[in-house]
């Protein structure tokens, strides 16, 4: 009796360990990190200076990253998430994971800052958490804010709002592609892709000063375009940790 029991448990153990070996796959975690002039973002701290020489702090940062996709050499693409909402006041939004990445040689990762025209439609994401906070009113084109970046500048009682979105229905979202070398062959375990936003660069070249544009750019197509130019130049960097 004892022997049989031992045998059974041994077999069971064997099966369990076999299962474990089999279960090793590749999961990818996308992390969103934030820096200002190279240092990790600290909110509510009047320690930053933009290209225009204005001191500022960051109190609110909320934004949407969409179409987060891995591309492979053979032309296949793997959509990791359609839309991801990041809120600096909620750490749970700083990352998400995609499990069981199929085997392939992935050569690039790409994402959109904001929502392209096909997705930037009023009430399209009515049941998502960001629906209320990122809402962009109909008379100004509808859809959603791509980003809300807010704080004080020069002194504690003068504020700036940098709200980007599809002003008058125009598409100011932009695509970011990063070439990577990631061969997934079942056994990588957890891989991370880190998407860093360098916040100061939203305001650099072309220079954007809060004293002129702090009170709002939601209706300002020229400024939406300048922000887009700055954003697509040097705001985002992507690194891969295997």
């Amino acid at each position, binding site marked *: 009796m004892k022997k049989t029991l031992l045998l059974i448990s041994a077999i069971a153990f064997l099966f369990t360990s076999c299962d474990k070996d089999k279960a090793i796959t590749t999961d990818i975690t996308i992390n969103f990190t934030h820096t200002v002039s190279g240092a990790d973002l600290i909110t509510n701290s009047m320690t930053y200076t933009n290209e225009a020489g204005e001191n500022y702090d960051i109190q609110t940062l909320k934004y949407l990253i969409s179409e987060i996709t891995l591309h492979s050499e053979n032309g296949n693409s793997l959509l990791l998430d359609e839309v991801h909402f990041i809120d600096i006041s909620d750490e749970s939004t700083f990352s998400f994971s995609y499990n069981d990445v199929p085997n392939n040689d992935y050569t690039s990762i790409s994402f959109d800052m904001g929502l392209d025209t096909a997705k930037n439609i009023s009430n399209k994401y009515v049941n998502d958490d960001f629906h*209320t906070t990122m809402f962009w009113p109909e008379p100004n084109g509808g859809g959603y804010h791509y980003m809300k970046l807010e704080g004080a500048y020069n002194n504690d*009682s003068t504020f700036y709002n940098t709200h980007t979105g599809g002003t008058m229905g125009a598409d100011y979202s932009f695509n970011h592609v990063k070439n990577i070398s990631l061969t997934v062959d079942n056994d990588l375990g957890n891989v991370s892709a880190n998407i860093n936003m360098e916040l100061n660069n939203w305001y650099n070249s072309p220079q954007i000063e809060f004293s002129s544009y702090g009170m709002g750019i939601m209706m300002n197509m020229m400024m939406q375009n300048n922000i887009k130019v700055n954003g697509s130049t040097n705001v985002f960097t992507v690194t891969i940790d295997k």
Partner: protein
Amino acid sequence: MKSLIYLLLGSILIISCKKDLAPISGCTDNIAINYNPNAITEDQSCNYFNTTPYVIETPYGFPDMKIPSDNPMTVEGIALGEKLFKDPILSADKTQACINCHQQNFSFSDPNQFSTGIDNIQGNRNASALINLGWNTSFNWDGSSLTLEEQAFEPVTNSIEMHNTWTNVELELNSHSNYPSLFKQAFNINYIDSNHVVKAIAQFERTLISTNSKLDRYLNNEEQLTISELNGYAIFNTEKGDCFHCHSTNMFMDNLFHNNGLDIEPFIDIGRAKVTSNPLDNGKFKTPTLRNVEMTAPYMHDGRFATLEEVVDHYDSGGKYSTTVDPLMKKLGVGLQLSNQEKKDLVAYLKTLTDNEFITQ
């Protein structure tokens, strides 16, 4: 000795026989809600627990309402909740019901700056309008309750409101002529407890939905707005007036807490920080919906503004600086600089959110 035992047995028999001697007819099925344990003759009167589900249709531009899985909406639960909401039985001296401070004519709010409890003591916050509550993620001006069920516990025992005890409420309801059967029908319970009282009230509150305003009809191409209302619409929905960031979407609120520049420090009422103990939340209050705002005067958490004109004047002034004032108050010190006509337009627009059906149905 033996005869004594016989006598005893005999008397027991007689006593039990006596009970049996008065046979009553009724429902003899013990799973029925009106099961009568004394009934021996089945009279086909059995009613079984069978609630009627109540479906909330999602209004345009609203998310699906999140209803707690342990309190599904039923016609019976809602009717019971409405009865409780309007019944002064919940207050210690039976003089005050929920509806006394949440009056339907005022979109279920109190036209007084502060409500007065049964002991003639006033609170220090304005009673909120009860409207589209099912889409809120927290309740009270400081968000101290996370569900409607949780919220409903509070006014009953609050010493400056209904000043009752739940033990007393349960006693009153269980000995009432109607409530035991109504609770039985709604929840299939034999003993009424506080949990089911608040469940019923919460169900009723979730049905207080307003989406038939002039603005809704305009957005649905059924009615036109005046030039003034349209100007107000544009001011509201652009950074000129910048109302929409907090009063956002078709719900006209964002479920968040903001310091809108009402006061300088120190604050008399620290608001959200009372709940979170975070000094960064000092002076922040929950954004109320603006639906039916015309009916919900006075305004702000402390009811300091009697009219919508005063509210618009506050925002037009740009507000006062304090360390936690929201950066959305970006025209602080400068003001919105609206003309008198633009202020009127904004008020005219706010009045397009009035839903008269809501206060009469």
